[in-house]
């Protein structure tokens, strides 16, 4: 398959940035999107040009590093996946593919398609944990948790911090990410104790870092590779109300 790639190139945070167009040929349908970019980079290096910088690590959909905004959608034209799980068979031969970085003030661009997502770490540092050491895993039956609750907490815990929710949101809001963390811990007995303090601190940090506020458009939920429901945002709102009144 042959493609025309329009890729965002930007030398650093201060650079204005621009699109560059590349032609790429003979890509097999089972090539992953990141492998296709590897092939492009090989070609660019051979031609003595600088390769396209993009983030990736596990390449198996669990680390959340590979955020790319492809043809108007975070992680490209497939549902419930990260970019590393996107394959070229999802495109048509001859397609033009536009690749952009996540765009949000809170995620400044480091180079080309790589953004600085450390804002998420800063939010987590405000309370995305339990502040005492809970020791070894206890006997499973010593604290009973109903299966529905465990399941829902597990769903929330599956957030990989990729930032697609921020990228998809018209307000660049981080609510789905924060809600996943708050909800996950608030549902479980060990996390409940600090729930009030946690929800206030994490929301305050999220606001301070320049993320927008939630207007319930649900774009985040559609683009989240882990299918995290905005019902966790409703729980976050409940926790926030409980913490304040």
């Amino acid at each position, binding site marked *: 398959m042959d493609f025309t790639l329009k890729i965002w190139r930007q030398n650093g945070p201060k650079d204005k940035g621009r699109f560059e167009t590349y032609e790429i040929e003979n890509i097999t349908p089972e090539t992953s999107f990141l492998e296709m970019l590897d092939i492009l980079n090989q070609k660019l290096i051979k031609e003595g040009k600088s390769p396209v910088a993009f983030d990736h690590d596990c390449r198996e959909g669990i680390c959340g590093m590979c955020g790319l905004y492809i043809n108007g959608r975070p992680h490209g034209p497939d549902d419930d996946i990260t970019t590393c799980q996107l394959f070229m068979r999802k495109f048509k031969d001859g397609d033009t593919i536009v690749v952009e970085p996540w765009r949000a003030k809170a995620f400044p661009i480091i180079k080309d398609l790589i953004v600085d997502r450390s804002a998420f770490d800063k939010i987590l540092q405000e309370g995305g944990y339990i502040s005492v050491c809970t020791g070894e895993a206890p006997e499973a039956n010593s604290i009973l948790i109903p299966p529905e609750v465990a399941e829902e907490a597990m769903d929330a815990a599956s957030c990989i911090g990729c930032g697609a929710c921020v990228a998809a949101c018209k307000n660049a*809001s981080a609510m789905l990410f924060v809600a996943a963390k708050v909800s996950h811990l608030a549902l479980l007995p060990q996390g409940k104790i600090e729930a009030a303090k946690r929800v206030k601190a994490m929301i305050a940090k999220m606001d301070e870092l320049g993320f927008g506020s939630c207007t319930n458009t649900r774009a985040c939920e559609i683009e989240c590779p882990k299918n995290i429901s905005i019902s966790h945002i409703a729980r976050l709102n409940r926790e926030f109300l409980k913490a304040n009144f």
Partner: protein
Amino acid sequence: MFLNSSVGKKIVVSVSGLFLALFLVVHLFLNFLTVVDDSGDAFVEACNFMERNFIIKIMEYVLAAGFIFHIFYTTYLTWKNRSTRTTNYHVSQKTEVSWSSQNMWISGFVILGFLILHLYNYWYKFKFDESLEVEPIGKFYLVVQLFHQWYYTLFYIIWFIALGLHLNHSIQSGLHTLGLTNQKWIDRLNLISSLYAIFITVGFSIISLYHYLTYVLNNY
């Protein structure tokens, strides 16, 4: 602090919006009296009751404050949310989200434009036209006769559609913001929100069309 946080602000917006939405139901029932009773007596009686009732007088100020607050605060928040990106995406969003949820300020702005016209046509005249004090039935004719002009009927229907689009998103969104949803209720509330929006849009439109059509048919 509650109001300093984005979630607190959002909760205040949803309370103000849900209050306005509740008012619409009362307004719709009141207006329906012009259809139910052709003589206009029922409508005028209801108007008189409202003008004399102390609680309703207070509610009038609360409502005005609610509108003003809602308009300015949501405009401020919309503007603030727009400034969270330095560069916009080159390819516009392809994620399939509902139109009404993405364009609340636009539907709100259309509502506001017609609201000003509406307030001039009715509220202002009800308050300041002295002949209506002597002859209260004039209120009924004022309401009904506006719709004898086809373009006013059209304006109002456009208004009600914008209102419907606004409400389609807002009821479920407001309840969600108050934390009143979960996995199971999220889709049910979406449906309830749409049904409420249709109820309001169709309900008000029927009243306008009724007055227009009875006029046209009687003069045919």
